[in-house]
């Protein structure tokens, strides 16, 4: 299969990175977010669960973790939006020999804080955290978490035993939350040396003890960087929030058709606004075959469906844990991709939606960003950006759907 087209987004343009079961698709648009140029598939035939964009220290670095079903996974990167990718000879993430473990999959790539521009994190399967302090050249296992006495009792969910959420505290370099399925939420306050389970109030309906210290099947956790002690959690059955850095959690499944689902994301500017896509517990598709994004604008007190532009019958869609993201523009762009290969986007905080592209392989992850403009700190303060007129680039597939 040949790669189609190239994209060359300018500063201020939106980059939409889509991981699928069969490779990566990169889309770009002006800030208007009406027309998208498409390139891909990159790494055709390889499964991609983790993508990231790193704009710290003047970079424009796309990170990707393609996984061959035969030849394993390596972390690759591109400085030119997919025209060229690194292909390391040796795998860059490896479990040390003494662990007896082998890397199965990279589930998450997260650039570190703005004040540590060479730090990156990866969450992997089997559940572990890796850290790089030299901008991704070398990686090491975070032993403090790996050596946790709970680890032997973490169990794989249907997707595998994975560390899928990494939330560095935006200003305190010693603090970080991670989430593991199934293991639950863990927090470090000492830069990763020690970790504490933080699941008080999060349910585990599949265990005899419904509220264990750990072992919950947490699907995803979101945090707004301006309120880092407030966390919002989509559980395997249960929707929870914490206002005290995960010391305690409370149920917030008010007005949702199901408390099961995978993704949960924050609005880029409003720390009270979060988005989820509930799924039917048994069928793992959106309830009643109606594709509805639910949004809270009051920090989880109430949730309301967003349906304009989304199919409200016959939509047997599934959205995976990293299948939704938002850009940092104002109004925010919100995007999600489905297991049936459709990607929907909203350019107005979720108020209305359009089909951006369909007929992709099953979507595993989506990351949205503003090129050369989105770091954690900027995400808090970004205001409306000027819409620059896009000039013509190399030929790339264009898409304009859902009119």
């Amino acid at each position, binding site marked *: 299969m040949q790669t189609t087209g190239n994209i060359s987004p300018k500063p201020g343009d939106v980059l939409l990175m889509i991981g699928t*079961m069969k490779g990566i698709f990169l889309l770009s648009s002006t800030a208007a977010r009406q027309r998208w140029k498409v390139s891909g598939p990159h790494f055709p035939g390889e*499964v991609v669960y983790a993508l990231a964009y790193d704009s710290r220290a003047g970079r424009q670095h796309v990170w990707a973790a393609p996984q*061959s*079903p*035969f*030849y*394993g996974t*390596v972390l690759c990167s591109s400085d030119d939006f997919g025209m060229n990718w690194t*292909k390391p*000879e*040796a*795998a860059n993430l*490896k*479990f040390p*020999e003494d662990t*007896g*473990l*082998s*890397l199965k999959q990279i589930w998450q790539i997260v650039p570190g804080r703005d004040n540590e521009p060479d730090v990156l994190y990866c969450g992997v399967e089997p559940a572990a955290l890796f850290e790089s302090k030299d901008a991704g050249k070398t990686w090491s296992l975070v032993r403090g978490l790996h050596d946790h006495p709970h680890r032997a009792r973490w169990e794989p969910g249907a997707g595998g035993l994975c560390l899928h959420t990494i939330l560095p505290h935006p200003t305190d370099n010693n603090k970080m939350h991670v989430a593991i399925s199934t293991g639950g939420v863990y927090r470090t306050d000492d830069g990763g040396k020690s970790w504490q389970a933080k699941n008080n109030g999060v349910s585990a309906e599949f265990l005899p003890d419904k509220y264990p210290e750990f072992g919950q099947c947490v699907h995803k956790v979101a945090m707004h960087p301006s309120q880092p002690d407030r966390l919002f959690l989509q559980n395997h059955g249960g929707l929870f929030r914490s206002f005290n850095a995960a010391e305690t959690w409370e149920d917030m499944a008010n007005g949702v058709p199901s408390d099961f689902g995978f993704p949960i994301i924050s609005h880029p500017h409003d720390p009270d606004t979060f988005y989820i896509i509930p799924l039917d517990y048994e069928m793992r598709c959106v309830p009643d075959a109606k594709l509805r994004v639910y949004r809270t604008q009051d920090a989880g007190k109430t949730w309301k469906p967003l349906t304009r532009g989304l199919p409200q019958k016959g939509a047997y869609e599934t959205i995976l844990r990293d299948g939704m993201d938002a850009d940092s523009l104002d109004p925010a762009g919100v995007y999600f991709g489905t297991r049936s290969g459709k990607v929907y986007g909203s350019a107005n905080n979720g108020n209305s939606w359009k089909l951006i592209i369909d007929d992709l392989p099953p979507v595993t992850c989506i990351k949205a960003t503003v090129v050369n403009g989105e770091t954690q700190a900027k995400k808090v303060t970004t205001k409306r950006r000027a819409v620059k007129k896009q000039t013509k680039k190399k030929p790339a597939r264009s898409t304009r759907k859902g009119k």
Partner: protein
Amino acid sequence: MSITFVIPGPLREFTDGQTDVVINVKPGTVGEALGLLWQRYPGLKDRIMTEQGEVRQHINIFAGEENIKYTGGLHTQLNNVDEIYIIPAVSGGINN
């Protein structure tokens, strides 16, 4: 005295495009032969082996016509064997 490795298509980018890699030494075992292959083309190692030194789950290695899974794994002797085939397993279905 030599041993020839037959390399699958997706890995030939790590062997300068070569399908057949001939090593002019006759190693005693498959493991020793692979060690020589890694020395010449280091990009192959992590694609074929895990970091724990095991052949990846969906890779089959044949010493001659025998799958080494049934002949002693990496300790398989190379007495009368001139070719080692590295072949991705037949797989597919659930996630495809």
